């Protein structure tokens, strides 16, 4: 039988059959190298068994608890920063897409011209808007005012609650990092 196999058996006899153990014992009688290895390994095992278990230093779990609070705070901060980053990047992408599509359709000269026109005409346009708004608002009956106010208030409430829920959800995710 080859030496390699005996070397393997020699260092782990836990799964050897009685026949294999006898074969190994016979091999050890004739092979000083394996005998030395076996003796050394026996000694190492004995040293491992007597090696002391190293316990955690005092206050380990208290330090963990303290660090847990700090790590969670950092995790919240990272999660909020991530959320704001995603929001910012999304807005930037939308703005860039709109800008690109507008620039693709008009020349830069026309663009600059229209911006100047908007600035110059702004006071006159605002005045016109004020007249139009005043004209139509005067035509709204008082009951419709109440209805419109209610719709706006309800919409604002829904908006606020959705915002608060989203924040809470992100906050919770940051807390658990999941």
């Amino acid at each position, binding site marked *: 039988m080859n030496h390699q196999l005996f070397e393997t058996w020699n260092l782990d006899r836990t799964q050897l059959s009685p026949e294999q153990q006898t074969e190994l014992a016979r091999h050890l009688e004739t092979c000083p190298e394996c*005998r030395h290895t076996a*003796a*050394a390994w026996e000694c190492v095992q004995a040293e*491992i068994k007597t090696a002391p278990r190293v316990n955690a230093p005092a206050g380990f779990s208290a330090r963990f608890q303290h660090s*847990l609070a700090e790590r969670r705070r950092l995790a919240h901060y990272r999660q909020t920063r991530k959320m704001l980053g995603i929001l910012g990047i999304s807005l930037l992408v939308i703005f860039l897409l709109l800008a690109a599509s507008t620039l693709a359709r008009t020349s830069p000269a026309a663009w600059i011209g229209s911006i100047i026109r908007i600035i110059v005409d702004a006071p006159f346009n605002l005045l016109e808007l004020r007249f139009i708004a005043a004209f139509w608002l005067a035509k709204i009956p008082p009951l419709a005012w109440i209805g419109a106010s209610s719709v706006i208030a309800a919409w604002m409430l829904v908006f606020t609650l959705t915002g608060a829920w989203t924040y809470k959800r992100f906050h919770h995710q940051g807390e658990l990092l*999941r």
Partner: protein
Amino acid sequence: MKAYMKQETNPNAERMVSIDENELLVLAQNGSEEAFTQLVERYQNPVYNLCYRMLGEPTEAEDAAQESFWRAYQAIRRYDRSRPFATWLLSITAHYCIDQQRKRRLPTLEIEDWMEEVLPDNTPDPEKMTGAREEKERIHRMLAVLNPQDRAAIILRYWYEFSEEEISQALQLSISAVKSRLHRARLKFASLYQADRKLTPGGIHDESPAF
């Protein structure tokens, strides 16, 4: 592992012995920080010991143990309660320590370095020669020679009494890979021990192993 877990002597662990571990795990999975802290108290010694054996330095071992518990805290919801918690936790710890050693390129001593370290010191220091300390240092040095994964395998096998299957699960290796790593580590340990005994007074004893 089982024997080591039974050796838990932390007084806080005794106080909490009435609380079933499963109950603690359910609470921890539902986000209870207190329940997780109790688990930390129960498992701090085995986790710390593994880090210490892997990294060889108390400060680094504590940092690694703290980080391992933090990782376990982050992943506790994904923990499958059909598996033993200790195996899961020590698996996280072993992986973290292996990564740390790879990142920091911590000393995995070469055989030549080992030989230099075990060469007898010329300056007489009788206290240094005390048996227990010598043995402790020898084990320490022998572990340092192994590569991180072999080291983790041998520590889990002989300090925690993990079976080969448990080691394969913990280190995400095949059983044959675990067997070959353990064999390599045993062989290296035996040869280092022989080298050490040849270099120290008394030399190696040619003793036949007891069957």
